[in-house]
């Protein structure tokens, strides 16, 4: 494929990036290859597994199906942006404590998707958690520890202990 590089401006984790890259590269590829943000993973690159999930304006978004040129004004959050000032998000702590990350490969997308849920529903039922995470495949955990970790994080955040 031949093309010339074009300038792309992206706002990722609150930082402004300007890169020269090929217009056909997906957001997933630009994040990983041009910005060095390899915390975002890939499982299929066809929009089937949600492993590449990031947040765009706070909503879960499949980075393998998006072109960065379409997202220049949007707020993109990746796993690298989940901790604030070096302090891990309560979801990250709960996932670590409860064994909700086994191999850790789906974990970035799982965490970001869970965060989008808790941002709009601080007290989700188990059923709401199931629904919210249903698009993100995990082959290790059987999902049970993930449900428990989301519930624990939600509890701690409500208690202000997060």
């Amino acid at each position, binding site marked *: 494929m031949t093309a010339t590089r074009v300038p792309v401006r992206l706002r990722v984790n609150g930082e402004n990036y300007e890169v020269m890259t090929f217009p056909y590269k997906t957001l997933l590829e630009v994040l990983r290859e041009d910005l060095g943000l390899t915390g975002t993973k890939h499982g299929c690159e066809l929009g089937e597994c949600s492993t590449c999930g990031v947040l765009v304006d706070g909503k879960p978004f499949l980075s393998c199906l998006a072109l960065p040129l379409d997202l220049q004004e949007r707020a993109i959050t990746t796993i690298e942006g989940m901790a604030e000032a070096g302090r891990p998000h309560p979801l990250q702590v709960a996932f670590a404590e409860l*064994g909700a*990350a086994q*191999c*850790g490969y789906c974990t970035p997308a799982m965490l970001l998707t869970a965060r989008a849920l808790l941002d709009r529903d601080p007290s989700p039922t188990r059923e709401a958690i199931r629904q919210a995470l249903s698009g993100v495949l995990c*082959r290790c955990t059987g999902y049970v520890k993930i449900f428990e970790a989301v519930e624990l994080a939600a509890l701690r955040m409500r208690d202000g202990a997060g």
Partner: protein
Amino acid sequence: MAPADGEDFAIIGRSLTKPDAMAKVSGQTRFADDLALPRMLYGRLLRSPNPHARILSLDVSRARALPGVFAVLTGEDLPEKFGILPVSQDEEALAREKVRYVGDPIAAVAAADEWVAEEALALIEVRFEDLPRYMSIEEAIQGQGEPIHGRSNVHKAVALEFGDTEAALSQAAYQREDMVFFEGNTHLPMEQHAAVGHYGQDGKLTLWSSTQTPHYVHRALGKVLGLPMSRIRVIATPNGGGFGGKSDIFSHELVAARLAMVTGRPVKITLTREEVFYAHRGRHPVLMKVRTGVDRDGRIASMQFTTFLDGGAYGSYGVASTYYTGALQPATYAIPAYRFEGVRLFTNKPPCGPKRGHGTPQPRFALEVHMDRLAEDLGIDPVTLRLRNLPRANSRTVNWLRITSCGLKECIERVAEESRFLARWKSMPPGRGLGFAVSSYLSGAGTAIYWNDMPHSEVQLKLDRNGGVALFCGAIDIGQGSDHVLAAIVAEVLGIALEDVQLTTADTDLTPIDLGSYSSRVTFMAGNAARVAAERVMARLFAAAARVMGCEPEELRARDRRIFRRERQEEGIPFAQAVQAAEAEDGVVSATGSYTPPRLAGPYKGSGVGPSPAYSYSAAVVEVDCDPRTGEVRVPEVWIAHDIGRAINPVLVEGQVEGSVYMALGEALMEEQTFRLGLHKFPSMLEYKSPTTLETPVMHTYLIETIDPEGPFGAKEAGQGPLLPVIPAVANAVHNALGVRIDEIPITPDRVLRALAEKARGHAPRVGPAAIPAFSFPPPIRADVPDEWKAR
């Protein structure tokens, strides 16, 4: 030294956060495809579109001429054959004379980026001559025309007999025979395989790879590249899921290394998701027949078990897989006479190999639905029938497997009680059913895949002056928590904190060997090696501390980063001070520990597969909710008990059990790896159905601790065994719910509807094989049986 069993542990048995957890939840863990080196090129493989064909010509000249292409390899560049087992050296990194499955690699390209590499692949011209295709067990057996390898499509046929099964059957009060089929399925790790090769000007090759078996990859690279192993370094990156799918030697690993040597630049190859489906090495499709004779009370008198494995195009682990389809039946039930016949056929499909449970989920399915029927025939409930056939702790099975601890009885009683199985199973509401099944599994294979006398796992420790411990071990964490097991054992013995242990793992230059994360061996074997290394370090520190404190080393204990007198705990010194004292006396504080499993193989050919230093046991009850109109089967609730020996970290063990239940439900109800004219029917994550959060049942997990005498702190395996009883428990539950037998896995809606239609027509209410192919097994090797079975 280390706290004796029964003492209060600081770390063992506690659900602490594992050492690699925070890196994983913050995206800092570096998987193979996350690596990028200066001047790195990208490699791609050209794969066969043909299931079986001779390569008449291969022209790569146009690909080589494409700007941005740095190298093109063909089979002539890597002619040395390889294979994971010494007896099956039948693979080529790039096929030379013929291709044997759709996806068989033929040529490889290294280019400036993946798009150029892809473009180059399209410029390679291959002319094929089609050969006859063998797409099933039956076709492989009957096959006329050119076989896939050598002179026959029979890869391996084995027959073993322990005791006189025919005589015992003829005297049995009751006997029955069943035939079932288990379709193949694949691991589907979330991370696609990736490898990065680097060849320095110093003539040293480094390969980073998402592999479960860096030591075996190291050996294969040496053989195929013709380099001494001392010039090759293999670093296994954390695996983004393995489940057995990254435990073979893969073409892309050898090719990435060779391309790096040819170009003088780093080369990365990451498989696409579609390629992962074709790389496979997953669950064998297996056709099975089982005949069992029992006494009036349902006690097994004799069993004959026959398996046909659809192996795919290459050997892989297949010889071991074949034996595994027969090995563990006598470890789960007390069987006084046992015959096993198994054959693996080559077919023109991606090679099968080990997936979680390696060769044992299929016979476990067969045996457990068979036992359910025996129970029904005899009017005995399924729980009681199992309890009447328990294996004994501290015994030898009729096929010479040595059982140490055995918690099967406790597992059975626990799930039966918690699920109220016996009170409920005969009076379930319409569409609802309960199913029961049990299993056993290895805690590590007792023999290495290549014959040698050396340890299977080794750990090296080096202490720093502040009391930190650097731990080196060849084991690779694939998500199962092996890093935690290593750190927890060392920290427990030394009386320090988990975070005081720094791990360096799975690097053939830096770490002593561990054979790999397969056969559920790491906790048991690397754990034992870690314990030995830590106890050696502790002895030195106690000696140094005793001199400082003016007491005897035997009086000392270590805990909370202190070394102190057991009887007068206020008298002690900081752990770091003991390290400094030891270092001042005799230099670097360092020690190694090794683990070699006891020699357990029985006195017969083929006895190398099955022996393990310990067996785990599991029992499961599954509840199903079936819709007779759609054939859909839902699983609302699962009860599972697992004999773990000792849970080094309960939350991680529960995670292994829950993950096993999940994977089993996927296999039982939806996952299948099937082909049309050699093409995978659904090589994508959308079409290859696997369970999501919405299909997740309520899981009740019970850990049964039997404190194995040889396991590290009494621990046994957790990663594979709990998968085994779940699949047949689903099948038994469907029968309980609908009165039909689905003797084929997966239990898909169409199969359920077919069985219900058969039932409605008054036919046998089942779907499943009616016959097995005619095949002449070799006469069985008649092995002597252990003394304890001779009296029977």
